[in-house]
């Protein structure tokens, strides 16, 4: 009976199982899980995301609450990461700080993608005077600025604060995406499928959005993932210098800046937030390497 079922099932395979898209997704996921460091990075990131989302429930104390009876206390069972100069619990502030850092990393890169991808796409597809002499030259000029200095200047122009810092960092990362997307589009533009699409009378916009962009997406995603790490460091740097997140909102960069003054008496104030920046950035870097292996093993 079972044999008969198998025989009858064979000519009508499960459509999902045989779908080439599903098979390539399974293969890609398989490649990702082979990269153990990437998986470890992904897991740590997941923990950070959970900490950030559920901070009000997971943080043992209110991160802003000052306790003058518990100033500069070292790590203990009551305060795992100690307390700062105002008696605030460092662990709770780190948990809330994860919100700021992840938000800053993701939104800054989203801004860079939102501006950089369309410009790179149009520039690489249509080429010509605007591409060669205007967009690329402005991109080159923007890339000539040390990124932190440009971010600092922009943050000063927009005014101190997290939202403005994210906008500044996003603008600093934009030329990187313009250049990357343009390069990808230039390579795809010469492929036969694009010629075929043009010959078939498909509109340029449709060719760019439906045909070229999906084929150029893998390196853009890899770059975007890795840029989140850079954006987190940039936000922390701006907060460290006083132009990012403003007190009393806890952010890893501003906690480090505050802790710097107490490094001799209470090193934990600076050590723990820095450790979290380091671990978050390293996880994103190794996770990004895993995503690269997953999306396009040839990129390695």
């Amino acid at each position, binding site marked *: 009976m079972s044999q008969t079922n198998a025989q009858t099932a064979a000519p009508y395979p499960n459509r999902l199982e045989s779908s080439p898209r599903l098979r390539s997704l399974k293969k890609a996921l398989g490649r990702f899980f082979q990269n153990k460091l990437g998986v470890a990075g992904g897991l740590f990131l997941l923990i950070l995301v959970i900490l950030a989302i559920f901070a009000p429930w997971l943080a043992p104390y209110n991160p802003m609450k000052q306790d003058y009876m518990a100033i500069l206390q070292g790590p203990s069972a009551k305060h795992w990461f100690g307390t700062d100069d105002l008696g605030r619990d460092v662990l709770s502030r780190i948990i809330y700080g994860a919100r700021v850092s992840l938000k800053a990393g993701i939104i800054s890169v989203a801004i860079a993608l939102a501006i950089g991808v369309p410009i790179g796409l149009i520039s690489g597809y249509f080429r010509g005077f605007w591409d060669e002499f205007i967009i690329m*030259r*402005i991109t*080159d*000029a*923007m890339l*000539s*600025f*040390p*990124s*932190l*200095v*440009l971010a*600092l*200047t*922009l943050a*000063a*122009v927009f*005014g101190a604060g997290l939202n403005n810092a994210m906008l500044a960092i996003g603008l600093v990362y934009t030329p990187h995406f313009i250049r990357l997307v343009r390069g990808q589009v230039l390579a795809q533009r010469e492929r036969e499928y694009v010629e075929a699409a043009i010959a078939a009378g498909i509109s340029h916009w449709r060719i760019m959005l439906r045909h070229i962009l999906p084929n150029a997406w893998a390196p853009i995603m890899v770059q975007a993932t890795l840029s989140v*790490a850079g954006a987190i*460091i940039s936000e*922390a*740097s701006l907060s*460290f*210098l*006083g*132009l990012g997140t403003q007190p009393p909102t806890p952010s890893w*960069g501003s906690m*480090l*800046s505050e*802790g*710097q003054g107490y*490094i*001799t008496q209470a*090193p934990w104030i*600076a*050590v723990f937030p*820095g*450790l979290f*920046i*380091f671990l978050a*950035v*390293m996880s994103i*870097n*190794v996770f990004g390497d895993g995503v690269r292996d997953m999306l396009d093993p040839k990129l390695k």
Partner: protein
Amino acid sequence: MIVILFIVSVIIFSLVNVLPGDPARLMLGQEATPEALAALRKEMGLNDPLYIQYLHWVGNILHGDFGYSLRDHSPVLKTLLQKIPVTLELTFFSFVVAILIALPVGILSATRRGRLSDYLGTFFALSGISLPSFWLGILLIYLFAVKLKWFPPSGYVPLSENFGKSIALMILPAITLGTHLAAELTRMLRSSLLDVLQSDYIRTAYAKGLLERAVVIGHALKNALVPVLTVGGLQLAAFFGGSVITETIFGIPGIGQLVVNAILTRDFPVVQACVLFMAFMVVVINFLVDIAYSIIDPRIKLGEVSKG
């Protein structure tokens, strides 16, 4: 290069001219009378259209006049010339630290692939890239200055004044700034050397009976250095960005510290001059890297590089 510098100057001018705050009020203070403010604005050309102000600004810079600081009214060029050697000294020592770490670690990692030294080298590269410099700096101060008391925690003494003290003060900042580059170079050198070591000519060199050291140093390293040079050149440019943090932490009076203070106090002429200088250095370094390509690898023609 000229076109890029022109666009860079336009960007800097535009950025600084949208910074909130009135330069005339900053110079004269909050107590200034409206008449005095109006007179100074006229004198500084602040009432002129922006493009006229830009042309004046560029014209003055081309004549070596970067204007005057709004804070202490000192000539910006003079301040800049005092700070440049300090930052260049920090950059030089950081680069030396990066090379001293990256060359042996990268070579060991590539030639001992899959062994403990390779894993340690790869771990160093990965962590060095992820280490925020401000955290590393604070940790180094805590460990080597506060706890072990091997080095002074911060400050700066010119090399010409006291060589020993100057070097002692420069070691921790140089490690702070150089670690990231060391990690980048290690990673790049390892992967580049691994590629080169698989080439036919390397197999031939081994077949001729050459020792491993002669093959790696004499034959493989030169070709493996081409992509490393790209990263090195680009990262050297990033040193100016890194110097902002390092100089702030270690109290080094260089351009990084100058630009941070100028931005925080809205000292426009100083911000413009510092950022222009940094961008100029980046453009020049990139150009020199292009030239160095063709020297290290004669197969690469300068024109082809700049086209790419």
